[in-house]
């Protein structure tokens, strides 16, 4: 066929990714699940990202509140700030920002780690010694991301609300109880649940992209950097795309 080289290349890459994904799925159910490595990855991915997610979440809620206060004050509606911040953080900003932060931190580190394992023939070595590198390295990392990103997002959401509380109290004096009640007053299960589902997919995308870029990198030293870099870019783009899809789906199925 007479396809242009770039289209050809694109199709080839897509096929390769589909293949990689199939082998990931197949290896989840293969038996001999690597529980220890999975838990270790949960620790590495989840616990080690707590700090950065906490700071980002907190600052996000704080700044968001400070920025909205003056505008809403003009309409005498500053009482709605907590609930507005809460809904936007939980529905949209929390998941997306956490997703992007984790794309930067986790996808890149998985990409670099697997990339350097590939360059130094550690993956080949596992394969030759009869171990299953997809099961040991890829399945554990992707699943750990899929489990931990939603939890990190919930944590970031909570930190945002705390930030919002401080933000509100820069200008008015509101008790914590009142702030909390005002925040969750208009929050429904339909705001919360789709957001959690969405973050599961963000986690899947981050883990998958990181593993794919690292695992399939070339065997030169510069490809480690390349793998890390392209993992961040691709994971971030995926998050934006998935978010757009999620918004469409929720507005069709949940809000009408």
């Amino acid at each position: 066929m007479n396809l242009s080289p770039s289209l050809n290349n694109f199709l080839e890459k897509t096929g390769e990714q589909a293949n990689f994904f199939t082998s990931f799925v197949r290896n989840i159910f293969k038996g001999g699940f690597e529980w220890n490595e999975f838990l270790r990855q949960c620790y590495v991915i989840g616990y080690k990202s707590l700090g950065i997610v906490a700071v980002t979440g907190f600052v996000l809620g704080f700044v968001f509140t400070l920025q909205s206060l003056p505008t809403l004050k003009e309409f005498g509606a500053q009482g709605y700030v907590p609930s507005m911040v809460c809904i936007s953080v939980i529905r949209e900003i929390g998941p997306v920002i956490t997703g992007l932060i984790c794309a930067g931190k986790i996808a890149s580190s998985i990409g670099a780690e697997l990339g350097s394992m590939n360059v130094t023939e550690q993956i080949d070595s596992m394969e030759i010694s009869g171990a299953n590198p997809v099961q040991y390295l890829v399945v554990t990392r992707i699943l750990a991301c899929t489990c931990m990103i939603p939890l990190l997002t919930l944590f970031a959401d909570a930190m945002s609300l705390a930030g919002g509380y401080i933000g509100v109290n820069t200008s008015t004096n509101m008790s914590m109880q009142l702030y909390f009640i005002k925040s969750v007053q208009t929050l429904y299960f339909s705001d919360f649940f789709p957001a959690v589902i969405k973050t599961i997919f963000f986690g899947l995308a981050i883990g998958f992209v990181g593993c794919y870029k690292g695992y399939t990198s070339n065997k030169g030293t510069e490809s480690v950097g390349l793998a890390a870099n392209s993992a961040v870019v691709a994971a971030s783009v995926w998050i934006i795309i998935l978010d757009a899809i999620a918004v469409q789906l929720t507005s069709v199925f949940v809000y009408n």
Partner: protein
Amino acid sequence: MENVIEIKGVKKNFGEKTVLKNINLTVTKGENIVVLGKSGQGKSVMIKCIVGMILPDEGSLKVFGDEVCSMSEDTLKAMRTRIGFLFQGGALYDSMTVRENLAFALQRVLKITDENDIENRSKEVLEAVGLSEVIDKMPSDLSGGMRKRMALARTLIVKPEVILYDEPTTGLDTITSKEISQLMLEIHEKYKTSSIIITHDMQCARITGGRVMVLNEGEFIAEGTYTELENCNDEFVKLFFK
């Protein structure tokens, strides 16, 4: 004698470049073969073909009597657990300690789960390569030569029937390299392993080698015992023994 490895007319190109032109090699059970050759002549590619990591373009490649290229996933895996492969760069898992590196091999290849057994076997093999004191270190904390010996330990710990050594003594001083060569010979005699040893170290070739083969431009151009090749008249072969 039973043939463990049988390579016939194997050819391998990378793009335009022909790396292996016509490789013929038979390794019988309990035989040690030393492969000599200049850098970049495809020695590493050849042994990677044997374990099915690189597929040859042409030719037949039999390991334990089965054709490698047409093996099912399970047979390939079973075949690989019987073969030890020492990577040129060591390929130590750098997120694991020395102990975990060894345990990983034992658990996955020999399916050993007993902690004490793993511990004893690890200590034994580390002692053999002279690394008893580093068991809790990370590979990145070891020196280059120590990593090399550590990689050897990880290959030997699973007691494979066939061992493919890719430059086991490169980067070691003469004394250690002699010790390692003697260890390789010892293992060979004790467990009746067959091995292919790729090396540039003539001392290692002399100590370990039964048969020595010289690879050049994708073909074996000479073979014989160490002394035979040492005294042969071929100009190229002579260069190795200077």
